[in-house]
């Protein structure tokens, strides 16, 4: 009780009001009512906008999976294409995508992670660092078909790799590099500065601090970036069209490693483009099944990344 109030007169108990609803506190004027109505309408409109964007996504993905069901079975995934790809399965395309993803990851992961380390741990705040950051953004913003032209000019022609898995996965690696760089940078930035300072005080060198403290504490975030790179590399079509993907390649059934790195390969994304646009008379369930496998693969990997991020955030101690 406030000392200013006379003790003889007890203060009236404040009316229990919800602080967010002014109409309970005051007699609402028309103006207030209009204001609140506008707020509600705005909320509904923005919510409807979000729903209008995101619901079609769910509907379309559901539709693809439902239409794919008649053709989608184990034999489709592990089988070889038959009758000019109008029957059979997609195994060579799936294996080719795996090749491309693994090779591009082998190249992009070390370069991307080290570039992220450089940007977060070594780079000073000057024009050069800004240029590097701008280059990263630009690398992510360059159209995929321009990356394809780069792949043709640099790897297929100049480096003499020809159209091959190597050329295609190098192109993919350059293209997906920004994903890894940005993820690594953010993961490292999330490690508190005090951790590093404690180490420096013990006389550890910059690299020792990174190796023993910074990297172990940001491992999850970096892994998330690598998973996102896999998604991206698996889904891209344009960069591999002219650098290594091929419409059809005869492989033996049951072969685990059907390609050499210098071969051209089939790839799932390119296969989808081929059967959808180049080959007449492919049964529709097969088209949908090919799309469903590609989307399913990408979304499952993406869910891994999201689940990992949620878990990391929950586990975070600082």
């Amino acid at each position, binding site marked *: 009780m406030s000392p200013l109030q006379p003790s003889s007169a007890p203060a009236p108990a404040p009316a229990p009001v919800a602080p967010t609803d002014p109409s309970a506190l005051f007699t609402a004027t028309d103006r207030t009512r209009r204001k*609140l109505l*506008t*707020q509600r309408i*705005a*909320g509904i409109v*923005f*919510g409807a*906008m*979000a729903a209008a*964007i*995101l619901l079609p*996504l*769910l509907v*379309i993905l559901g539709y*693809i999976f439902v239409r794919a069901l008649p053709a989608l079975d184990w034999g489709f995934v592990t089988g070889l294409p038959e009758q000019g790809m109008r029957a059979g399965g997609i195994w060579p395309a799936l294996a080719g995508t795996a090749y491309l993803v693994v090779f591009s990851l082998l190249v992009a992961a*070390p*370069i991307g992670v*080290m*570039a992220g380390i*450089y940007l977060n741990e070594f*780079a000073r705040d000057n024009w050069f660092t800004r240029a*590097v950051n*701008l*280059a990263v953004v*630009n*690398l992510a*913003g*360059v*159209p*995929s*078909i*321009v990356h394809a*032209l780069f792949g043709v*000019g*640099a790897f297929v*022609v100049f480096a003499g790799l020809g159209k091959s898995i190597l050329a295609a996965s190098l192109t993919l690696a*350059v293209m997906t*590099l920004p994903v890894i760089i940005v993820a690594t940078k953010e993961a490292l930035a999330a490690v508190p500065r005090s951790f590093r300072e404690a180490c420096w005080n013990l006389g550890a060198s*910059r690299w*020792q601090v990174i*190796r023993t403290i910074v990297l172990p504490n940001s491992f999850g975030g970096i892994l998330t970036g690598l998973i996102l790179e896999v998604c991206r590399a698996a*889904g*891209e*079509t*344009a960069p591999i*069209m002219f650098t290594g993907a091929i419409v059809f390649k005869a492989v033996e059934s049951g*072969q*685990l*490693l059907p390609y050499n790195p210098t071969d051209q390969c089939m790839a799932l*994304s*390119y296969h*989808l*483009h081929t059967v*959808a646009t180049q080959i007449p008379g492919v049964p529709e369930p097969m*088209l*949908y099944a090919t799309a469903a496998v*590609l989307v399913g693969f*990408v*979304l499952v990997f*993406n869910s891994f990344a999201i689940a990992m991020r949620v878990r990391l955030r929950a586990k975070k101690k600082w």
Partner: protein
Amino acid sequence: MISLLKIMLLLALVAGVLYLMYLIYRYCERTMVTLIHICGVSAIVFVFGIFFFIFREGAPFLLKDFDFGGFFLSDKWYPTSEENPRFGILALVAGTGSVTVLAMLFAVPFGLGTAVFISEFCGRKTKEALKILVEFLAAVPSVVWGFIGMMVMNPLIIKLADAPVGLNVLNAGIVVGLMAVPVIVSIAEDAIRAVPDEYRAAAEALGATRWQVVRKVIFPAAKSGLLAAVLLGVGRAVGETMAVLMATGQSINIPFDGNAPFFHPLQSVQTLTATIAAELGEAPSGGHHYQALFTLGIVLFAITFAINLVADLIVKGIRKGK
């Protein structure tokens, strides 16, 4: 048998390389630091590399008898004509422009609206769920969007709009718009989150409703970030390849003319990106057509570079201002 041997050899090789890398990682500090510095500048090297190698392939066309007016101002793209090949990109630019404009008409309001809803109007749980959905939207590969355009949107447009073909500007515009939305949402949301909470608190203390806060406080404060979001959305739409290749109908055509309504979204077009994707495979290496396609690549590279540079300057501009 041979296959098994090959796999085992490969595994041994991978294990060896990994062990070597671990040794360097563990014991060679100087090497690692040098490597990190080299990789640090890799992004710049690659950006220059992209420009250099595309220029290298396209240079003969660009440096020898390059006809500026015939390239930029003519709509006659007859690259395979025997006696008189013509390389006018005006119709292709119009194709890219029409798809981009339509996509943005749809993606900008919906993207910004979604960003505002996610950051200002919904609860924490809804927010997380919506952000995951936006991420899924961004993850769907462009070839799948093209497939959706062909298989789902195409019959829908023929039925609803009574159009002769469903593969047209409208189809591609909607598909590309959906692809640009996640870019716009995530960057706009970042921009809105960067507005200090004190601003919101101050406005709410004056009795402003949430909508008034958004309109009078958040929008002005996050203006440049929102602009950058729109710009990067445009960049995404201009650069999109597979979806427009499959959904625009691939016919060289300017969808604008003097007759009302001046813009005809139900006509098929062909974009810059799709032209490269569709024709590079058939163009004989080193020929004029091949070099012209690389010149298109330079044009695209320049456009997206400019967009990214401007967006970066805008974003950095506000950082400095604070």
